[in-house]
């Protein structure tokens, strides 16, 4: 499908991410891949410049070095360098992640240490001019910091910002101010950037589009031991995503409301399910894309407890499957999604979590209507036509069609 007014044929952006591939789990990486593939699907030449790493803890090279094609996108991979095992870098990381007063040396050490790629930077230096736009994401990796300094006048950053100590480091602020443009995933993220950079207009909101798969709830039930209604969480399982909090809250909820629902967790990373809850909390681990959509289709409620989201792809996907959502009030982005769409409820503490969940599980009709409202919201605001129009506008690409406004800018 071609946009009604397409940009010039020489449009050739490069997305620069620390990891790229269908096996890679991560919101920013997913955003880059899906956007690149959508552009490729519409006939544009798109490249992805990345490292060979798959695992964001070890940054060990997994993919072969060199160029390859993935779903129409030219992917060029370079060896990754990480110094995370060095004590000096660990100390710098610890300072940067916990305190705002880390020295510039410590900040630089952190960015050098977390992940860089000499080969990638060399490629940008030699061939960066051949791409019409260099789009870096997310903000907190050496690939973005050092890469965007090579051609700042052609560079855009999709920072995927969260309000976390890393974002407040002066070097990050300087990087965000030095590039040609910033692109945000949601109005909440944009507002945070506005506060962080002390500017009224940090950049437009673009987001990403979705191509939903058809989920099969029966297939999900056949594959898993889950019976009855359940609350679904999909995504990385780690402290930063608040999964331990969800497990803790759900244990208490299940003890007070026996037999009402189970909790199903999907995704990469570890999660500790207490032995006394193994009959109500099911950890399915990493699943395929189709299995994830089967899970959405079978779930009663989708819960996103994370407070560190710049878009929350899984939340929007679950809405496309018509599930009502339960999100954390302390996350500006997801609670704003819920407020605008009317697609769910938000909680701040256990009592609110328990009561909201009871409402969603007891009142199926209202829950269904919330899911429907969420679905409408995603379909209207996060469809690829709308997203790509916003992207072209954000990148300053002439499309021949001047839309007065095409979305959440």
């Amino acid at each position, binding site marked *: 499908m071609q946009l009604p007014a397409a940009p010039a044929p020489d449009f050739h952006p490069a997305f620069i991410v620390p990891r790229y591939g269908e096996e890679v789990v991560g919101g920013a990486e997913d955003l880059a891949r899906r956007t690149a593939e959508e552009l490729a699907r519409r006939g544009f030449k798109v490249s992805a410049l990345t490292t060979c790493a798959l695992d964001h803890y070890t940054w060990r090279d997994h993919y072969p070095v060199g160029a390859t094609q993935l779903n129409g996108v030219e992917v060029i991979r370079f060896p990754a360098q990480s110094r995370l095992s060095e004590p000096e870098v660990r100390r710098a990381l610890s300072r940067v992640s916990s305190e705002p007063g880390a020295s510039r040396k410590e900040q630089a050490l952190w960015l050098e240490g977390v992940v860089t790629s000499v080969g990638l930077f060399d490629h940008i230096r030699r061939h960066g001019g051949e791409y019409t736009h260099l789009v870096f994401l997310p903000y907190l990796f050496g690939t973005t910091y050092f890469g965007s300094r090579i051609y700042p006048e052609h560079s855009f950053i999709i920072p995927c910002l969260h309000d976390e100590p890393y974002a407040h480091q002066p070097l990050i602020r300087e990087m965000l101010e030095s590039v040609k443009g910033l692109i945000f995933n949601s*109005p909440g993220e944009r507002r945070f950037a506005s506060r962080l950079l002390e500017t009224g207009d940090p950049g*437009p909101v673009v987001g990403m589009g979705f191509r939903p798969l058809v989920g099969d709830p029966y297939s999900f039930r056949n594959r898993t031991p889950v019976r009855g209604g359940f609350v679904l969480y999909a995504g990385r399982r780690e402290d930063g995503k608040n999964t331990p909090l969800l497990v803790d809250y759900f*244990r208490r909820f299940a003890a007070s409301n026996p037999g009402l629902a189970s909790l199903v967790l999907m995704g990469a990373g570890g999660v*500790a399910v207490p032995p*006394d809850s193994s009959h109500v909390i099911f950890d399915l681990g990493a699943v395929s894309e189709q299995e994830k959509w089967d899970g959405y289709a079978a779930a009663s409620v989708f819960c996103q407890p994370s407070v560190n989201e710049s878009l929350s792809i899984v939340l929007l996907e679950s809405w496309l499957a018509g599930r009502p959502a339960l999100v954390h009030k302390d996350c500006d982005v997801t609670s704003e999604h819920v407020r605008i*769409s*009317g697609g769910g409820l938000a909680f701040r503490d256990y009592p609110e979590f328990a009561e909201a969940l009871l409402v969603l599980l007891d009142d199926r009709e209202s829950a269904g209507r919330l899911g429907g409202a969420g679905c409408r919201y995603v379909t209207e*605001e996060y469809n690829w036509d709308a997203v790509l129009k916003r992207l072209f506008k954000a990148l300053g690409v002439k499309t021949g069609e001047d839309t007065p406004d095409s979305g959440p800018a």
Partner: protein
Amino acid sequence: MEPDFELEGKGVDAGALAEEVSRRVRERRESGVYSEEVESLLAERLPEEEEFDRLPPAAELDYSATCALSTWEVTTAYPVATEKRLLRPLVILAKRLTRKWASIAVGPIQREQSTFNRHAASALSALRLEALAERAQALAEEEDLCMLAGSLIDEGESSGIAGAVIDGLGKAERLLVLGPCPKGMKKGLEEGGCKLTSVSPGTSWDEAPGGEKVRQGPLSFISQVPEGSQEAVLLPELAFWLKPEKLIGLVRRSYLALAPGGRLAIAVHSFAAGAPAPGWCSAAVVERALAIAGFKDIKILTAPKGFVAVATK
């Protein structure tokens, strides 16, 4: 630029539902089901609280070690067979040749794999033995403490403490006794109408069929009890006699194990109630430990000898 989505509230009154949730939370808070003080205390969980005093997973290690020990040696000498009757000699010969070729090709790798497997199986086996020894040691230590309790406390004193526990707890249908508990006290509690929970060391528990067979649970049992499941818990002082940190850990874990409104009693006999007993067995320290764990309505009831601290979740 301000965000300009225009979909707010479309098709469903989410605001009304959110207000309904707030109303329910308000009502529940007013009725005492959710206490903000308790919620904030619960939010600050102690380090390694989930793993409190958990014994090593002997059963899991036993299974894994047994499987590993029986399968560590890999071989290319797999059995050769065929269902084809007429061509049987030919097929068998071909398969044998293939097996021979495979053994030459992958022999060195197979030997390396077997060596690795052997070491891994040995390590698992050693871990299993260590876990079994650790578990046996933990249970033996608790049994020793039970015997010690018996020699330190006379029956009359224990029944007096049991009376104070019953007074403090009021009517408790089921009482979980944790750690070493003198027989006299258990007898007194049963005579006073308490149904004591019987525990099989390990993983299962059920109601005691009769007074004679009642026994207290090992301290590690509290880590297996589902949160919010207990009506009342009794903690005799010998459970934390040697280690003050046990007092904090056990009280906090007991708090989690109790249902809302559940009660905890800590019984301290005369030998521990005053000097030269450890200071953390004193009433003031026990009271403080209960407050730290999130308990309310803390009372110290003086028995003829010793005291009983009672608190409500």
